[in-house]
Structure formats: C-alpha cells, structure tokens
C-alpha cells in the first residue's frame, strides 16, 4: 500500500432503496492530502462522504483505509472523523465535555484526558470557552469546537460537510485559513464536501468534481480552473460561454457557426470565460441586452447569432449602452478545449 492510496474507494456503489445515487465509484486519496468533493446538490458528494464515515452501508464495493478494508466496519469503530454542517454539538454538554466525549469513550482519563482536551481547544483557539455551553457560542466558534472534538481523536481521515457555507463572508476567509493551517500542521488526510467552487479552488490540493454520482474530473485547482474536462465542469468554474464542437463549427442556438483555429482532434467542446471574449472587434456582432458593474470589471450580456454571450472587460474602459451593437470575437487560442460534452 502506497501513500498515494491511503484511502481507496473501489467500485463503490451507494443506493437509497432502488435509487442508485453513486454507481461504482473508484477513487484514491493520498495520505495528508486536502481534497475537495465538489458538485451541485444531488451529485452524490454527501452520500459518498457519509459512506466513508460509515453512516451509510454500500450496496457493493469496498472502502480501504491505510491498508485495512473498513467496508463492514461500523461507524463507531472507524478511525474517521466528521465535522457536520450543523456542527452537531451536544447541547447538554459544555465545550470541554463535548471535546472530551470521544476520548472518554476510548477510556482516556485523568491527566491524559485533560491534556489532550486542552491541547485540542488551544489548537482551535477556544481555551477560554471551555465551560460555555454550545448555545452560548457563535456559529464560527461552534464549528471550531466541532473540529476540535474530531481532531482530538486523531482520526486517519477527517471529513467536513460544507464547512464554510453557514458562515458569513468574513468568517469564511478566516475559517478557510484556519482549516488549511490545522490540516498542514497535523498532516491529517482531509476531505471536504462543497458546492462552492471558490471554496474548493482556494483550499484544496486536489478537487474531485462530481455530477450525478459520477466523477467528472479530478485535478489540482489550476487544472480544473484552466483545463476543464467537460462542458459541465467548464460551466461550473465560470466558463459562461460553452459550445459543442463538430468539425470546423460550433453548435449554437441558431445553428452551426464556422470557427477557425488550432483545435485538437479529440476536442468535443470549446469554452470561453467572459474575460476571454474580445470586445470591440471581431467577425461577430451582438446587441447589448444587459450590463452590470462589478467593481474592477464591467460585464455585458449580448444577444448574438451565436445565442447569448457573456463578456467582460476592464471597468476603466468607456461603458457600452443598453442596445448598443458591438463587434466581438471568440478567439480559439484562448478557449479551453473540452474532452467531453453532454453533461450540461
């Protein structure tokens, strides 16, 4: 067993009754990695996470952790931790007792227990809140307690369910850095589930994009961002102009449009970010149907023979009016070339 296959899902199939949520998933996660399961709701990411935790029994397939097959091992015996989206703190216990809960069950007592709990609290910066009850804490603080509670158990894998979605923008940034720090310092293998691509891109070493129970693409944040493999992934990470490619044309709402440039034979689709659209010159023409100011940039929604096109340019440039007719281009050199289409 190599470190790159610290956690493996082998042909894992998860279903709810007759409904197959995740068919035969294969996935390898390396030791010490910070991995994101990214996708829209219903894509199976949470189901997969719960299966790893043991809260859901697979219909078939195997889960192997650090060389051991844990597929049939009950949840309370797996060396896996889970920080719930709602934090799931025990309302009748204070912070100290919440964090100590799992350790006590393991039989840790006395000085040993005290040290480990206090260290855990120190790591998340909540030492002075030890006697407070969960109801007296803010959302961000509750999450830290939840994190500490799982971390003191020294799990082999730590799972986090949508860790940042309940926090406001400011806290999100704080927590993001916090989580990365804790992960790097402790070296724990961390998997978090999210529907927010910004979160995934910012935090993860590797991202696993899921759709309808399948893995759409696995890659580093740079990979996913710059080289989406399918039209779904492209759209998900912000390529708002996505087209299927057939030969020398792209398929648009109004029929096939010729396109020229260096296109790989295997490419099935082309995608452009709004910032990649050339505005002001080009072979195509469109009418401005909407504009919005976004601080550093200005966005335009154009009605064109190719359908709706979203373009973006520097806010410093003079604005174009509603109804203005603009020339534009979709330069193939800038486009992301997609290996697959049909997922959107």
């Amino acid at each position, binding site marked *: 067993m190599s470190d790159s296959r610290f956690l493996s899902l082998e042909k894992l199939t998860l279903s709810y009754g007759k409904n197959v949520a995740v068919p035969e998933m294969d996935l390898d996660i390396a030791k010490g990695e910070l991995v994101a399961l990214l996708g829209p709701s219903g894509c199976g990411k949470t189901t997969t996470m719960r299966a790893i935790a043991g*809260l*859901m*029994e697979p219909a078939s397939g195997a889960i192997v952790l650090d060389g051991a097959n844990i597929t049939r091992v009950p*949840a309370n015996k797996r060396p896996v931790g889970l920080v719930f989206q709602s934090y799931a703190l025990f309302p009748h216990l204070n912070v100290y007792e919440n964090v100590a809960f799992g350790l006590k069950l393991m039989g840790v007592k006395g000085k040993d227990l005290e040290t480990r709990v206090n260290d855990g609290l120190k790591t998340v910066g909540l030492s002075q809140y030890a006697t407070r009850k969960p109801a007296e804490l803010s959302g961000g603080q509750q999450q830290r307690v939840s994190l500490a509670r799982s971390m003191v158990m020294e799990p082999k894998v730590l799972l986090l369910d949508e860790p940042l979605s309940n926090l406001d923008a400011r806290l999100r940034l704080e927590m993001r850095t916090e989580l990365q720090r804790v992960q790097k310092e402790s070296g724990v293998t961390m998997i978090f589930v999210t529907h927010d691509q910004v979160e995934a891109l910012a935090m993860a070493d590797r991202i696993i994009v899921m759709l309808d129970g399948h893995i759409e693409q696995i890659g580093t944040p740079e990979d996913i961002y710059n080289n989406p493999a399918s039209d779904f992934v492209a759209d998900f990470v912000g390529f708002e102009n996505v087209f299927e490619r057939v030969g020398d044309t792209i398929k648009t709402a109004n029929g096939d449009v010729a396109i020229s440039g260096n296109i790989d034979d295997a490419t099935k689709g082309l995608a452009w970010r709004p910032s990649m659209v050339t505005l002001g010159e080009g072979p195509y023409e469109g009418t401005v149907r909407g504009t919005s100011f976004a601080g550093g940039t200005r966005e335009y929604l154009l009605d064109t023979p190719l359908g709706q096109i979203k373009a973006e340019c520097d806010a410093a440039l003079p604005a174009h009016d509603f109804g203005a007719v603009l020339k534009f281009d979709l330069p193939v050199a800038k486009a992301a070339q997609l290996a697959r289409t049909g997922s959107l």
Partner: protein
Amino acid sequence: MFQNRAEAFALVLPAAIFAGAIFLVPVVILLSEGFRSGDSWTIQAYIDFFARPLNQAVFLRTLKLAAMVTAASAVIGYAAAFAIVNLPPKGKGRITGLVVLPLMISPVARTYAWIVILGRTGIVNEALVAVGLSDEPIRFLFTETAVFIGLLQLFLPLMIISLISALENMPRDAVPAARVLGANWLQVFTKVILPLTKEGLVIGGTLVFTGSMTAYITPAILGGSKVLMLETLLYQRVTMANDFVSASVIALILIVMAFAANLLLKRLATARNKR
C-alpha cells in the same frame, strides 16, 4: 444510520401490539357480540334495540345534548377566544392558563360542584327564593338542563383552546382589512373569521361532540336514571340485567358516532370552502 427497518419495527411493535391487544382486540370482540345470535351473524340485536322506545329516547337525547353543547360551546368559545387573543401577552398567558386549569381537575370534582349549585338547597334555588322569583325550590338536578350545563362546563375549555390556536394562525390583518372595506361585525365573522378558523372549529367541535356523546360521569351524577344517556344506559344494562348484547350495540353506536362526527365536521369545513 436510520435505514434499518428491522430495528424500527423492533422498537415500535411492543407499543403497537400492546395497544392492539389491550384495546382493539377486546373491543372488536365485544362489538361482534352485537351481531351474533347463537352461531349466526345477524343484525337482529340492533333492530330489537331501536324498537324499544326507551332506547330511542336515550339515543336521541344523547345526540341532542351533544349537539347543543357543541353549538353553545362554539358560540361562547368564539367570543371568549376572540377576547383572549386580543389581550397583551402576559394577560393572555394567565387567562389561557385559567381556562385550561379545569381540565386538570377530575371530572368527578367538576361535576359534583353543580350539585351544590343546582341542588334543592343550592345557591341558585336559595337565590331564587330569596329574591322572590319562586315560592319553593325548583328541581334543577336530574334534568336535561343540568346535564347540559355540566357537559358544557366540562368541554368548553377544549373548544376555547382550539379556537385560540386557530385565531392566532389567522393573518393578523384580515379583520382590519375587512373592516376598512366596509364589513360590519357579523359580516366580518361570517366572511373572514369563520372561513379562516374553521379548522380549529372542526377540531374543537369534534372533541366536544364526541366527549359529550361518550360522557359518563356528568350524566351519571347530574342525570341519574331520570336522564339516561348512552353510556349510563350501557352501565345500567350491564350491571342490572347482564345485558351484554345491548352493551355491544351501544358500544358500536358510540364508536360510529365518534367517527361520523369527525367526518361530518370535516365535510362542513370543506363545503364552506367551495362557496
């Protein structure tokens, strides 16, 4: 974690089997007695039962009183509930508490009080004689009126509570809106309050009606054998004549009436909807 059906059943079955065995099974057997004569199934018992004038009278009286109590409690209930919901929070809580209070006291105690009030030497009579409205004590006890009053007192809180709940769920601005559009209070009641609170009325009405239909203590204490209701009749038939067949017949009537009342009230509620 909560997928295992076997676990779920194991947890739930003891209670279900217990309730089924103790309540349902014996009751079903009792009900079946009303349909048997010897070894055959027949409804003769029912025919015989309703053929007797005494039984008819008891049946009709029970229905009548139950209906009257329900109607009276609805009228008084709306008035009281409306007054209560408009109170400031502190007062509302206290008064609601006072209304619910009687429910925690034994029906025996609550009914017994009426003996003191309605008896020959009771308050009402003493007052009437003192004021000169009557030369001698009027017999109030062991009349339908007494039973009516007793039942009303017993079940009014249930209606009030149901209506308070329904009124609170009514959109706050519905009544002022109707008033601004020119409705007088009667119209406000029939066109706004009633349609919007009819669910509470149904719930309260069902509770009061079935409670009154299946009452024992109040008719027993305040009605005695002069004003028999279905349950006191049942008791009498069993204890004095070992007549289990009549008991079975009455039992079925009571259960059917309870269900029918529920259905009828639900129908009335939805019918208003269609107008």
